[in-house]
């Protein structure tokens, strides 16, 4: 099937479910190409959140009344949806605020010291970089001139001091997919655990932690059609049970008998994963996340990925046609990337951030511009900024054509 036909068939089927796409921007129909930042939300997610507000606003795991019961049921179901999405058991999923908190929780749990090393590609997002420079030695893996990690250097970087290998499943800048199996094999051969930052992948492809054999996985809801404010940390059961407590307070404790006098045995935390979830959680966001996962899985992760690869081919090919545009990792085949293109526009007198703004103001096209939370990558490839277009399942080829038209105009 022709890519154009494949892309449009699915996109036209689902885009009516996204109320956001019905609005205009400066008189132009909205073209949303910024899903790598955050995805629009389908009606099913919006309804799940508003239904919670309208029908069962209540705290979870506490209320004895009917509303509390209903809220708890919806909240608990979301954990099982999240577990199923990544092929984990429910007790291996900790709800956190997002990918960033998941990684910080893991950093805390691993109790790394100043001589411990964490290896990660130099192309990583700050969320998977900065935590590893806090009281730990970061060991960035070299990247090439397009910002793609030089995976062949990994083994050289692993030492007896390496305590973790942490990789983005999909780069938020280049869209390239990491060779997870090879990384896991190399790390595990040395007894080193692997963290997979799946923020950019879980909405694009099937991710199965058991098949990939990663030790940890972090992801956010808001990049996967769900609300912001919630994400997951997956950890293998045996690892998670060994984690020290993270935040403490209500909801994570089974028994507090400090009235008997201070003693460690007087505070008994709940089992995993609840012991890592102190305080009232982001209830409505979590319920919405559950609805988002149901929505994606009903569509089919394989179907989404097929669409994604066709879109990647189309997007990169169309951008490459424009004189004065350089697409990072343009030669990476669609099987090894998602539908995301980061590019540099040779537009006289304009920064890449200006280009991104102009695309919105003049053409109604929403893209990202700047460093995309990856300062080091941009510095190493000697770019002061880039423009990133990240379509998703609801985008038609017409949307991409509009982007191309705008970029072409700005270049000329």
């Amino acid at each position, binding site marked *: 099937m022709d890519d154009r036909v494949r892309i449009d068939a699915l996109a036209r089927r689902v885009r009516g479910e996204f109320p956001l796409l019905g609005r205009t921007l400066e008189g132009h129909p909205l073209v949303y190409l910024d899903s790598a930042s955050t995805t629009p939300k389908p009606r099913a997610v919006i309804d799940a959140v508003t239904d919670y507000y309208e029908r069962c606003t209540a705290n979870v*795991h*506490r*209320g*004895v009344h*009917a509303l*509390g*019961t*209903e809220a*708890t*049921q919806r909240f*608990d*179901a979301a*954990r*099982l*949806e999240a*577990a*199923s999405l990544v*092929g*984990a*058991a*429910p*007790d291996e999923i900790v709800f956190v605020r997002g990918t960033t908190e998941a990684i910080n929780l893991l950093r805390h749990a691993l109790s790394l010291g100043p001589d411990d090393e964490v290896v990660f590609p130099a192309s990583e997002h700050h969320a998977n970089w900065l935590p590893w420079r806090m009281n730990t030695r970061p060991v960035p893996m070299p990247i090439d001139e397009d910002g793609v990690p030089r995976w062949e250097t990994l083994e050289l970087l692993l030492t007896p001091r390496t305590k973790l290998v942490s990789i983005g499943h999909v780069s938020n800048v280049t869209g390239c997919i990491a060779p997870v199996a090879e990384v896991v094999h190399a790390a595990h051969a040395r007894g080193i655990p692997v963290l997979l930052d799946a923020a950019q992948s879980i909405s694009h492809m099937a991710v199965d932690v058991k098949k990939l054999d990663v030790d940890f996985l972090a992801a956010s809801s808001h990049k996967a059609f769900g609300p912001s404010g919630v994400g997951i940390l997956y950890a293998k059961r045996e690892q998670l*049970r060994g984690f020290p407590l993270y935040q403490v307070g209500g909801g994570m404790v*089974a*028994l507090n*008998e400090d009235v008997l006098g201070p003693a460690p045995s007087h505070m*008994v935390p*709940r*089992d*995993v*994963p*609840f012991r890592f979830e102190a305080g009232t959680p982001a209830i409505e966001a979590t319920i919405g996340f559950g609805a988002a996962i149901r929505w994606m*899985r*009903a569509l089919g992760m394989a179907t989404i990925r097929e669409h994604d690869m066709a879109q990647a081919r189309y997007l990169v090919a169309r951008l490459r046609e424009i004189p004065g545009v350089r697409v990072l990792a343009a030669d990476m085949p669609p099987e090894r990337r998602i539908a995301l293109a980061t590019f540099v526009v040779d537009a006289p007198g304009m920064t890449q951030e200006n280009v991104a703004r102009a695309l919105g103001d003049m053409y109604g096209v929403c893209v990202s511009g700047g460093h995309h939370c990856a300062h080091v990558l941009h510095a190493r490839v000697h770019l002061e900024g880039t423009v990133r277009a990240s379509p998703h399942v609801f985008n038609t080829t017409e949307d991409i054509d509009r982007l191309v038209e705008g970029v072409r105009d700005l270049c000329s």
Partner: protein
Amino acid sequence: MLAPPAAVSAAPLEPLASPVDPRPDPGHAARTVAAIGRALRDIPYYRARGLVSPSPGEPLADVLARQPLLTKKDLRATLPRQWVPAGRDVKAEILSGALELVETSGSTGERLRVLWDEGWWPRQETRAMRTSARVAAAMDGARGEYREAILTTPECGLGTCHVGDLPYEERVGGAHLWLNQRVDPLYWTEAEQARILDEIGQHATVGLESDPFYLALLARFARAAGRAIDVRSFVQLTYAFTTRAYLRAIREVFAGEVLQLYGASEVGVLFMEGDDGRLHHCPFTTHVELLPVRVPTPGAAHVALVVVTTLDRAAMPLVRFVVGDLVRVDPGGPRLWTSVPPLRSVEGRLDDAIARPDGALVTAGAIDRAIGDADGVRFWQCNQHAPDRLEIDVVADGDAPGAAERVRARVAPLCVGLAVSARAVTGIPLEPSGKFRVSKRHVPLDVARCFGTGF
């Protein structure tokens, strides 16, 4: 179906004569008519409705036909004061223990408080259990002193009273041990499951009463750990629907008797599995009507709705109470104790039955039989969110997507007129009550169309 520890300790089990030999109760109909007469005369709820009491010698069928069906909704609005005979002080009797106020474990729309006369639950339960010769023998010491363990939701089903773990000694009441201390068995740790297995042995358990879902989970852990379920005589499954997959898992680690017991907190034990594999009506405490469905149910013949009249309760006697469960009747089967025919199976709750566009109900039991021994399937749940759609979640070993597709292919022929889809999941949420439902209908059902008058 035991009450939580507090209730039992207040009213220890009484030794009762065992009606082990099949002797039909010749006075069953007369006893039922008399119980209805007492309830209509003494209980304010019925008196307020001006119901006509039975005439002397009036046939049971005529008396029942005149009485309206009673639902949980009716009870919820009027408890407790309208349900004890006039002149009794409910508050004082609850304080003294003469009355027990018990909360059922149903979910939001189902949860209910019920009143039991002091010691009523264990009395009727013991009597019912003893209708099984094998269980009666075990209770009489055939396998050593009778000791029982219970595996189901903890006393507090919502987790609001979670205050750490209790040691073994504090979970024992008489000969009974309450095993579970977690609100959701999906999150049982290995240590927790090992403790439960250890305690079953430590307690010298002769009979284990269990929710089948909980025991299936434990059985899977036991098999993986190379352990057995150390129960000396029998396992009695109750509280929830038992699937073939659960039974398979349980039988892999337990070679003794596995029996079904069917009842409800509101009415007591109704049916107990006999040696012939059928569930037989337990005598003396209830009369059961089995209202047949109007439209044939695919995959299940002789399906009926259970309606119960209690016979031996001073407080909260129920007349024609709709328990809400569907059963498969064996109309030609032997009626051992009463005129009520035996059951081939409990088919799940009416709320669990899937409604086809042609009006037919597809019971949880029919779906389970259709799924049969599908390879690798551990747990499943059907959800009908729309009149024309059925979604199935499947937890399976190995090729989970393949197992989900096999389940879909087997269930679809039963569900004509519905688009059936299935997906692999790694877990299925329990109800807030801690019970697991294999099937949930989220669309309303015209009950009167299914079962005729009275609704």
